[in-house]
């Protein structure tokens, strides 16, 4: 069994929850080494579940080019069997960059990894309609893991792991980080609500959001949404749940007209109770929901709101 290299992810000075998920996953596969590029000592102290941390002193802000080159240098030192990255906007850049640099096979959108002889990754493809198992050979190889695929607690442990420092290589210097752009202050913090009423494409039109708002009011909940609703400009970005939005874990998540693309599931599948209402009985949302109902969402929501008032 070789080393499993986990690529830590951080944004705005904070380690991302997904890093701990990856460490937990890696500990089940072999000897875990964490690559921390541009991170702080404070971050190192949170990586107690790893056997070693390889640190590259680099700018604190992610840069696909320089961080990619740094990861290449770390990989040379560690010589891992498997490299695990997150499936996020940053993790995917690094996974692809490393694959291109080293000619190592790569599997993305992974929800599970096994390494018994050959490394295999399971992934949900085509909007969750297909589950694929990819054989990556005996390693080295790279797997980009979808957020929420493993419990974070298993990989979260304070401590002082051994730290090895690797010099940052000179990159091509063609990508320059300028600044972070923070979202306009959120009107509602959907991550702190006990109940969320989430709407998706099935809501049909902007005017119909009112129906969801009425239900939310009756439940003292907030209205959240999947990406298409945000892209259409019907709700602010602060309401977006999913891969490029927020991760939420309310007591109850009511999904209205949300089909359940993997990108959305990533943001809400850890909710304590998920109730899905969708007119399509084959919608993937029903696979993660605890309760489901195949119905016209307007009929249900109106009746539900009345019943609660």
């Amino acid at each position: 069994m070789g080393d499993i290299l986990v690529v830590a992810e951080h944004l705005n000075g904070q380690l991302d929850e997904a890093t701990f998920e990856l460490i937990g996953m890696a500990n089940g596969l072999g000897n875990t080494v964490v690559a921390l590029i541009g991170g702080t000592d404070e971050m190192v102290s949170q990586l107690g579940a790893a056997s070693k941390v390889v640190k590259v002193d680099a700018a604190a802000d992610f840069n696909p080019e320089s961080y990619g080159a740094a990861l290449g240098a770390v990989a040379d030192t560690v010589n891992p069997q498997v490299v695990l990255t997150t499936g996020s906007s940053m993790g995917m850049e690094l996974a692809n960059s490393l694959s291109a640099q080293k000619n190592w096979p790569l599997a993305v959108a992974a929800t599970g990894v096994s390494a018994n002889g050959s490394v295999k990754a399971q992934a949900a493809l085509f909007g969750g309609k297909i589950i694929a198992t990819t054989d990556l050979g005996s390693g080295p190889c790279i797997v980009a893991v979808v957020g929420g695929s493993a419990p974070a607690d298993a990989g979260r442990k304070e401590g002082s792991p051994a730290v090895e420092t690797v010099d940052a290589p000179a990159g091509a210097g063609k990508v320059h980080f300028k600044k972070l752009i923070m979202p306009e202050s959120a009107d509602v913090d959907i991550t702190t609500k006990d109940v969320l009423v989430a709407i998706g494409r099935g809501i049909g039109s902007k005017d119909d959001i009112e129906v969801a708002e009425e239900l939310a009011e009756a439940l003292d909940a907030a209205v959240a949404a999947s990406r298409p609703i945000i892209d259409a400009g019907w709700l602010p970005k602060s309401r977006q749940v999913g891969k490029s939005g927020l991760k939420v874990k309310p007591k109850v998540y009511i999904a209205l007209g949300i089909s359940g693309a993997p990108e959305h599931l990533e943001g809400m599948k850890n909710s304590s109770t998920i109730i899905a209402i969708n007119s399509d009985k084959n919608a993937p949302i029903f696979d993660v929901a605890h309760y489901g109902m195949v119905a016209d969402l307007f009929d249900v929501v109106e009746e539900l709101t009345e019943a609660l008032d």
Partner: protein
Amino acid sequence: MTFKTMVRKEKEQKSSFVEKDSAIVDGIDISGHWNKMYQPREVMNYDITPLEDLRALPGAESIGNCYQCAQCIGVCPIDNVGDYGPRKIYRKLQLGMNLLESVDLWQCTTCMNCLRVCPKEVNMIDIMPAAREKAILDGKEVPAELQEMFQNCAEYGNPMGESPRKRARWAKKADVEVKDLSKNPEPVDVLWFVGDYYAYHGRGNDAAQAMARVLTKLGVNFGTLGAEERCDGDSQRLAGEKGLYEMLAEHNIEKFNSLDFKKMVVSGPHAYNAIKNEYPKMGGTYDVDHYTQFLSAMMDKLKPLMTKEFGKKVTFHDPCYLGRHNGEYEAPRTLLNAIPGIQFSEMFRNKEQGYCCGGGGGGMWLDGFMADNINERLSENRVKEAIAVGAEVLAVCCPYEVSRFEDAVKSTGNEGKLEVLDIIEIIDRCIEE
């Protein structure tokens, strides 16, 4: 620019006047402010290029005929709930409006009520599609919902963007055999053109299944194009996507021509209009009936089958494309009057003067857009009328209308008071199993 701003600007332009210091007319001295008069104003001092440009489009010539009598305003269903009317279009064009970039371009439902009363035959049913086509080809902004519908029709052959392969799925639950001629092209008496809403919409499925059962009971030897059928294309044509209409029509005509049938029966007035009046221009001429026409010609057979009572108060909404566009007012009424136990009453606006549901000419896919321009949906206005005449059931015979009116029943707070049914569903309910 709104109409009001235009009128205000027009007034400002009028305000210059002349005043002669010395003037003696017929021996009377009216020097000074006595002779103040407005300066003669040239009517041509507006830029009428937009009007001329529009008039130059093939099909849009008759816009130039308008002499502002405003008969159309009284009957325009949109003006009733908003601020759009054919006369106003002409006036705004005179004042320099570019119709191709105006919200007015997408408001007309082509219901034809204006043409019915227009003494100058200003034909919005030709003008609007011509202008819309030009706007689409010029890359002007097209309302997003309409654009999505075009995209769906281009890709899947139906406005919903459903899988073309699933077009005949409704037939599985019809309880009777529905011949799929695309799989087994045997000769039939009647080729039934099912249409998008009957094929894909939940409530349309109900009507399609009812139709299959009624035709079977009548012993009609019928079949459908199954998964090979495509949207008729008429609403797409009227919404200005002529190329898309042609593509859909060519496909359907090719399929029709490969089959052996005597008569075609269509579920919807829009398909009826397309196949009767437009397909012949593309070389596809067929003996086509709307289903109400086909069935009303078989009353001697149909009437004895309807043995169950339907003792409800029913009113009927004339579809623009069956009524005004194609002059058929009697066939649906013949069917309704034959329903055992029915208590039928007309709405105030009926037959030639029937009120539009808002779904024609692309309006079916403009509800969100129109919400910003009208204070009440046309379907809501119509549902209130049905309630006002004491109806319990609003009978329709256009596949667009069931979902439109059912929505309107809910949004006007009349849920439980008014049921919306396709005539074929009522007939089906009256036939013993």
